[in-house]
């Protein structure tokens, strides 16, 4: 049984945020939480969280090369708890290992973007949001890692305590389909619906209307990748995990000489001729001048909505909404592409 363990710069004892730009590293034996797994960890590999987020391809190629070299019988990543960047890295590394035939286990909070990044390829054990659940998490990871390493059969999510991987397995049952269907129907009538999948979806109740736009502060928000010319803050064209805020103080129009879009999901030619085609600032300023809008918020908010995991997008939306609410904004016009 050969175990490789993936961690970040913090759990390797290198430092916190100030060391998050650490490139991939490799250490002999167990380090940090790996010592608590109770498994014989041959090699610890890792990467700074920012480095992984900003240089995913480079980081992955170094880490995967080390994995190929070690060819472990199982890879353990994390646990990452509620940490988004660390969880994302754990999810991606575990997924890529699994795609290469190396069984992988990771652990994190169920809302961590790493769960979506893992894409059902590795096993993800749910944890609390903070490191306080380390003690109860490590034995669960070790147990599942042991089974995988020994190529033992792994039961379903309920049985083994990992998050559903959305994998369907065929099994042979003794009873004919017709009687199983009747059994399911009877169970459903009795209130037991656990055999039915819950549809995904994020439903938000419609907020009440604003009383009068002429008395409201209204913000412009977009996922169309609209940024100042030259993209000074490096908004990614796709897979953006960040949003940006730009001042509109004294700006009456998103003119092509000062703004552009870096969105990687559509043909940007028409938008770059006139970025007001993405964020209707010129028209909104006219309506503000005419008293139809009480006041336009002093900033517009932007990101590129391409290939962003839904959980990440939801988090960005919550962050932007919190800022808008605390700035006294009552309504938002959000343009999408």
């Amino acid at each position, binding site marked *: 049984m050969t175990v490789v363990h993936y961690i970040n710069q913090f759990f390797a004892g290198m430092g916190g945020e100030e060391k998050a730009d650490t490139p991939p590293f490799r250490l002999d034996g167990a380090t940090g939480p790996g010592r608590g797994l109770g498994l014989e960890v041959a090699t610890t590999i890792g990467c700074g969280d920012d480095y992984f987020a900003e240089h995913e391809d480079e980081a992955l190629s170094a880490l995967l090369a080390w994995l190929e070299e070690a060819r472990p019988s199982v890879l353990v990543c994390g646990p990452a708890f509620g940490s988004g960047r660390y969880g994302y890295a754990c999810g991606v590394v575990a997924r890529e290992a699994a795609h290469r035939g190396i069984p992988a286990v990771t652990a994190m909070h169920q809302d961590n973007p790493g769960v979506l990044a893992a894409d059902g390829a590795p096993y993800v054990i749910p944890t609390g949001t903070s490191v306080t659940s380390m003690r109860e998490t490590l034995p669960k990871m070790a147990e599942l890692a042991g089974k995988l390493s020994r190529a033992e059969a792994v039961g379903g999510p309920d049985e083994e305590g990992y998050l559903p991987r959305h994998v369907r397995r065929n099994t042979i049952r003794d009873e004919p389909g017709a009687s199983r269907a009747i059994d399911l129907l009877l169970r459903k009538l009795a209130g037991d619906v656990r055999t039915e999948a819950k549809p995904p979806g*994020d*439903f*938000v*109740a*419609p*907020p*009440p*209307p*604003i*009383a*009068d*736009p002429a008395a*409201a502060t*209204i913000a412009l928000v977009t996922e*169309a990748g609209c940024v100042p010319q030259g993209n000074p803050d490096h908004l990614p064209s796709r897979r953006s995990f960040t949003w940006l805020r730009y001042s509109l103080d004294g700006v009456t129009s998103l003119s092509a000489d000062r703004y552009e879009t870096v969105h990687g999901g*559509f*043909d*940007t*030619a*028409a*938008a770059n*001729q*006139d970025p*007001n*085609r*993405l*964020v*209707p600032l*010129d*028209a*909104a300023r*006219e*309506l503000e001048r005419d008293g*139809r*809008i009480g006041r336009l918020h002093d900033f517009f908010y932007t990101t590129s909505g391409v290939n962003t995991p839904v959980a990440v997008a939801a988090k960005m939306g919550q962050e932007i909404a919190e800022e808008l609410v605390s700035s006294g904004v009552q*309504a938002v*016009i*959000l*343009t*999408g*592409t």
Partner: protein
Amino acid sequence: MVGANRVLRGVSITHPTGDPALSVGDELELRRRMVDRALNMLSTPVESRTVWEAEG
């Protein structure tokens, strides 16, 4: 737009609030009407996801 409750249909994916086929003046007028309509939507109660067309 998934999850949004008040949706105004845009002109196109690549230019939701504009139309390169129009003259500059007509395009600004179109955009002004769209924002005006968005303001009407913001001050209208809805029970569930509702999609408005740009005109009408």
